[in-house]
């Protein structure tokens, strides 16, 4: 998997990493993201599996527990770094928006 892929995170990658700031079972992430975003963001079950595999391979999350096929994961330091980098990028975007259109947006 090319590393540059994770230089910016897609919305779904962002929320999966965010959920794994606490140890969680993979399947629990689906429901949590839907609840957290009020249904605005919905992650497909296949996409969740694929991303968990890719994040584990890249060392962005680690497996903490395995009960049969039910596995729990937790974000790593590297994953936290990526998440923070994405958060900064989104904040900069927001700041740019507010600097130009902030008042109109508030109004």
């Amino acid at each position: 998997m090319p590393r540059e892929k994770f230089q910016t995170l897609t919305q779904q990658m962002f929320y999966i990493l965010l959920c794994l700031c606490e140890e969680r079972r993979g399947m629990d992430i689906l429901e949590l993201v839907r609840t957290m975003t009020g249904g605005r963001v919905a992650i497909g079950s296949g996409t969740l599996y694929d991303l968990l595999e890719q994040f584990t391979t890249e060392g962005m999350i680690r497996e903490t527990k395995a009960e049969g096929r039910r596995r729990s994961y937790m974000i790593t330091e590297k994953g936290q770094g990526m998440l923070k980098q994405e958060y900064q990028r989104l904040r900069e975007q927001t700041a740019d928006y507010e600097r130009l259109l902030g008042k109109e947006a508030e109004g």
Partner: protein
Amino acid sequence: MSKVKRCFANFSPFDQKTIETKLEEMAAKGWMIQKLGNLFWTYERTEPQRLHFAVTYFPEASEFDPKPSEGQLTREEFCTQDGWQLAVRWGAMQIFYSTQENPVPIDTDPVTQVETICRTMKKTVVPTQLVSLPISVFYLVFQLWELWHDPVDYLASSYKLLSLPMWPLLILVEGYELWFCFHWCRRAKKAARDGVFLPVRSHQFLSWFVLAVAALFLLLSMGGSAFSASAVAFGVVMTFIGMAVGNGLSGWLKEQGASRRVNMVVSSVGVLLVVILAFAGMFALMIGNRFPFSPGSTPVDTYEWNGHTYDIYDDPLPLELEDLVEAEARWSKKAEIQESVFLTYGEYTQRPLYSEEVDYQIRYDITDVKVPALYPFIQESLVNARQDQLQGDFVFVDHFEPADPAPWGAQEAYQLRGNDGLMNTYLVCWEDRIVEIKFYWTPTAEQITRAADILHMGTE
């Protein structure tokens, strides 16, 4: 009413949207997908249902796996827990269905989805085409080489002529499939970075159409050859037996829990053995003249000489030894004729049986050129077919030299020169007929004139 229905799979296995729509339509009509295959998909009768389908891929899976891997089962469990039911697996492809009104799709991230599809393509389509494309190119180049070096034999053979277009058509399909995979992956990855999933829209119908035309050429070539319809039937039956052996062996090995590698190797060897056995049997029968659909003339009798059995032929010949000499003997007269829209090419021999004490023998090839534009090319190739050979310091002289065409009443004539001087072999060129004739004795001027009259008469 039938409980099972088979439909032609007229779509690429990566065209998710088309497949999903088709399966939803079938389910609404009361047909649920049951089994997938390369050519046909099988549906079974159920109650009409309003279902949503999702096609997804697990690139690491293979049709040769004895059972799904833990990773695949985990992914499927994720889908099941989100409300999707597994309908069918086929190699790297899985099809799920959901009874929910608006289910969350299985693949929601274009970047991941495209990457999964591209990896699946690289493990399935690309290796297959990378193997078959060079084979098709090899056959095309080989046939063109044959056409260039032996145009008479090639252009007179309907079998070869009609099988020739098959290779460019196969190359077209194989090249297109490869190009499509790389082209789609490049564009889809770019689109995915912008958050858009680019659906696969391959022109599968076009590929099937071109393949059908290629298959038609193959059938026509077999039918157009000296082989009878039985030969075509033999080829078709052997193809189905090969496929059945491959599928049967692979299925049995899966049941026995054999690994993917073992399954692939053993199944391939099984198919190869069937092919080798079929060809070996066919050649053995042909050598023993027992093949029921051998090309060429048929012997009318046999005779024994020095402990060996020889065939006797009694085919009609345009020129017979009796036209040239007075000799009482038992003869074998053999004619092998090939015909196409470009040429008619006949090989004729008349020889005494080995038991006869006669020195006369004759052999000649007649090439009738039906397309005048081809004449110079054919003539040049026949003249140049004989070339001196240098072996060490010794030169094997074997070439045609211009000769006087007047005795033959021809436009051009050539005589063969060997190490012992001029031979009794001539190449005679009339307007649209070229004859290479070998006398096994030195013919007189009258015999040449007589032979020329008879051989030329066939063109008038």
